[in-house]
């Protein structure tokens, strides 16, 4: 069983959660001027890193909230959990 720490509920089993992919993708502000390539990049293209990945999660079966997590995609180790709007911890690269 692997545990995920919801910023509001604390440690819960992974099956209560769902991952929603890369975090911190800002919606473009110049959408009227964007071409298809730029839209394609915004909508479809993600980093797919091997190592520390910042991603969005929801606590579906608990409080239902969105939050962010830093996870090492190679080892599945979670390095940090933080609330939406908060910046990711600065020293993540060294932790991995």
């Amino acid at each position, binding site marked *: *069983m692997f545990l995920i720490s919801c910023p*509001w*509920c604390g440690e*819960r*089993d992974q*099956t*209560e959660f769902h991952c929603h992919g890369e975090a911190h993708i800002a919606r473009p502000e110049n959408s009227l001027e964007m071409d298809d390539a730029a839209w394609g990049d915004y909508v479809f293209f993600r980093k797919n890193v091997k190592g520390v990945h910042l991603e969005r999660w929801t606590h*579906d*079966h*608990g*409080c*239902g*909230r969105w939050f962010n997590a830093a996870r090492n995609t190679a080892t599945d180790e979670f390095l940090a959990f933080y609330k939406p709007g908060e910046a990711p911890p600065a020293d993540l690269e060294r932790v991995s």
Partner: protein
Amino acid sequence: MNTFPTPVARTPLADLPLLLGALSLEERPLSGKVSLRGNAGDSAFVEALSARFSGALPTQVGQRVESGQASLWCLGPDEWRLQCELDAVEDTLAQLRDAFGQCHASAVDVSDYYTELALSGQATRDVLAKLTPLDVSAEGFPAGSQAATRMAKCSVLLHMVRDDQAVLCVRWSHAEYLWDYLCEAAREYNH
């Protein structure tokens, strides 16, 4: 020309036989449930609620305060579930909406969106443990605890009323599934 029968109010599990034995499972009579959303940092919102609920607004997820026949349970950083008697819902909604005034908050009647199952008996915790990844031991989830969690494949608001009784609040459309699952899980204890 087709004529349709007059709709009759019934609870989701009304047609199922009760499970009675060393473990019992029964559907509770419909209770009043109000979903509250608002900003716990907004003093107008907090005051509107504390006018009705003596004591501080619970802001820790899982925390619950009782006030007379009603209780207020914190489900998330900006979400609460108010439980009261069914016939008190209308007045409660009117009072709360009036008290909220201009503040950015909502109170919605969700009474018939959920139903509650009561599971009782010595093996209650053992049965729960088969369905949820939550630690439901006496140490990890003492009597009085509550949590929103997963049970089998449903989202459930779980309230450990006593060491030998739990109340499970589930969406009505998931109720029969959860009921069947609980009966199956309870079978080895009911001989």
